């Protein structure tokens, strides 16, 4: 998939969130974490909501996760995103509770709880999106809707 010229691109220089995009530009997944208490600060921000420290840094995270939900978009809302396409919500295995969004072309077969792996999509010079691709499901069946996997 190549990025559409009209696709929104992320600000990569924000003082709270910029490190995420700088890591992505090096094909790495990094989350902000508190240097004092270790809490993952996602969505990224300097201030730790647990211990109120402002000493935080970026922690590289294994780029694997679990599918927490998805939607196949069938209605056109924006020229950069012609339907159908699929939005995935992925929970990171190494940082439970931290989630990221991904875009998939079309309407692929997906199952709740399916393992997902990050991919890195360069969309502009120095701007790379973290995307998510499904790995073979640990569970399979006739219909994703009929499955109620263990999401804990």
């Amino acid at each position: 998939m190549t990025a559409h010229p009209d696709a929104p691109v992320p600000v990569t220089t924000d003082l709270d969130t910029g490190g995420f995009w700088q890591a992505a530009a090096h094909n790495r997944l990094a989350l902000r974490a508190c240097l004092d208490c270790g809490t993952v600060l996602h969505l990224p921000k300097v201030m730790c909501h647990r211990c109120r420290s402002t000493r935080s840094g970026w922690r590289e995270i294994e780029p694997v996760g679990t599918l927490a939900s998805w939607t196949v978009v069938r209605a056109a809302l924006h020229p950069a995103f012609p339907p159908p396409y699929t939005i995935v919500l992925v929970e990171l295995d190494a940082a439970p509770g931290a989630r990221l969004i991904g875009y998939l072309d079309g309407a692929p077969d997906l199952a709740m709880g399916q393992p997902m792996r990050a991919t890195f999509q360069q969309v502009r010079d120095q701007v790379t999106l973290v995307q998510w691709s499904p790995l073979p499901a640990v569970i399979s069946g006739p219909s994703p809707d009929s499955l109620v996997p263990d999401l804990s």
Partner: protein
Amino acid sequence: MSGGWSLRDQYAISGVGATDFSRDSGRTPLTLACEASLAAIADAGLAVEDIDGVVRADYDSVQPGDLAHGLGLPNLRYWGTSGIGGAAPCGMVGQAVAAVAAGLATNIVVFRALNGRSGLRLGRGSAVQRAASRPVGGNGGYEEFFLPYGLIAPGQMFALLARRHMAEFGTAAEDLRAIALVARRRANANPAAQMCARPLTEADYEGARMISEPLRLFDFCLETDGACAVVVTSTERALDGPNPPALVRAVAQGSGPRPQAGTFLTALMRDELLTQPSAAVAELLYQRGGLGPADIDVAQLYDCFTITVLLQLEDYGFCAKGEGGPFASSGALDLDGSLPFNTAGGNLSEGYLHGMSHVLEGVRQIRGTSTSQVTGARTCLVTSGIPAATSALLLRAA
């Protein structure tokens, strides 16, 4: 803090007013706001000179000074803004109650005006529309984590919650359909509703186009041009008015135990995806009001989407977590059910006034003047939007 809320029943909504609801108003939001406010002021038996306060919503293009200028308010002494977005209306009433209670004003107009269909359409992703060709995000809004992936509109976010609810609890499309159909039947009885003359059948619902799976066209609310306003004052003064007041038994705002930044997409980062700030607000509201879900005669539940209603049914304690689907399908929400809901048609079928029309319909139920009146209704729950934060009201007959 035990016991209730010290201001219980002491402040009231004394007047309500609305414009027509349409797809193209042909007027500015300011004109709409002025029209709705004048109607509410007249309904309260007051004159423009009696209004000394204004409360607006953060998403409104009309500023307090704009309304004062538009109406020629000679005695404006208090103004305020509440939000966020659709979470505003009940909290706006609460802000007006607080201002009157504090002696900062006596009669406050609370309004919401928008050209939500002919102007900026929130359902099409307002942030991405505003961004044009600039990079998105930064400044604490976190849009950079969502918009570049094609997640740009509220319906897509709620579709993710609906899919998750279906997977965890076995909720079915038929459960969402039941919510859409009940709202439409109430709109069919309401001449002011945009869908008044348009019945909706099960086949219509199922045959409608999918927008963002599993949500179809009729799971989405009706983007609308129009305005709504109410007048908030003391119960003592409201009782002198020409119409029965709706007493504010309790009001509450809350963001829940894990507040999120931004507008709505960030709610996908909350620890618990399927429990909304409504759960915390419900607890506070019931405690302040000294009432519980069993005491509610009729409910006006914010319904930007059908799934929004289903989540609130659980959070406000009308059924257990996960049971929203069977509850919605049980007939409980219909006019003869245990919890008649959105008796004017709601956001889904009356018009999307960003939750403000729910406050007006709550007052009508308390007055006994709804086009789908619940016999003997004395207590009405009104809720405002989710997911970023929310607010709610308990209205009571005097």
